[in-house]
């Protein structure tokens, strides 16, 4: 678990944008918080899983996919902004993110 500083927020945003720009072959400048991962970028679950893995390694996170799955039942991630928000919650709370799930 880590305290999410402005530097971490910026790092996470940068990683997410770079990742999708490369994987989906789009300009980084064309991606923003409201960009829809599946409709606008043609992203898929494999990209989602690989991105989670990048963050797990970078921040040495203890987070299980099933926890993310449960979290997403109540908090679906459709846009880049929602993905960044979820990732910051994971960095801050790891497997406890489920407590931050909408009821």
């Amino acid at each position: 678990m880590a305290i999410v500083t402005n530097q971490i927020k910026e790092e996470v945003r940068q990683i997410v944008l770079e990742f999708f720009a490369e994987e989906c072959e789009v300009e980084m400048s064309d991606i923003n918080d409201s960009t829809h991962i599946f409709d606008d970028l043609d992203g898929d679950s494999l990209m989602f899983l690989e991105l989670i893995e990048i963050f797990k390694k970078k921040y040495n996170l203890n987070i299980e996919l099933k926890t993310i799955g449960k979290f997403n039942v109540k908090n679906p991630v459709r846009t880049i902004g929602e993905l960044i928000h979820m990732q910051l919650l994971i960095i801050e709370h790891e497997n406890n993110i489920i407590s931050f799930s909408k009821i």
Partner: protein
Amino acid sequence: MILGVGIDIENHSRFLKYISPNCNPEFLLSVFTKDELDNYRKFKNHLCYAVSFSCKESFLKAFGVGWNNSKIQWTNIELLFNEPPENKNTNIRISGIAQKLLGEYNTNTSFLYNYSIDNSVVVFESILTCKKK
């Protein structure tokens, strides 16, 4: 009676990295079971991973859910190869929440599946069915 149909397409070159010795085993274990990984390593063929991932996606679609909005885990749907993936001699094991869900539909629920591999993609189709009472 058909309960659900799932179709998935994967570009199989994306799975080449999974046969690399540098591939993170933890990542693989979050998507594939140990039995699956032991099975795929025998064939040293990235198509095993591509077909298996496509199978999991396809079944999730047939169930009418996504991996990130249901309690079904990737590892609840296992695909094991008896021969190299091109030969299509496989077995599927459904377990955990996926198995429970299958039972909730109807006790006579069963499934059919098929897949094809061409130069660039794997297409996996699955159908959940049940006998009419």
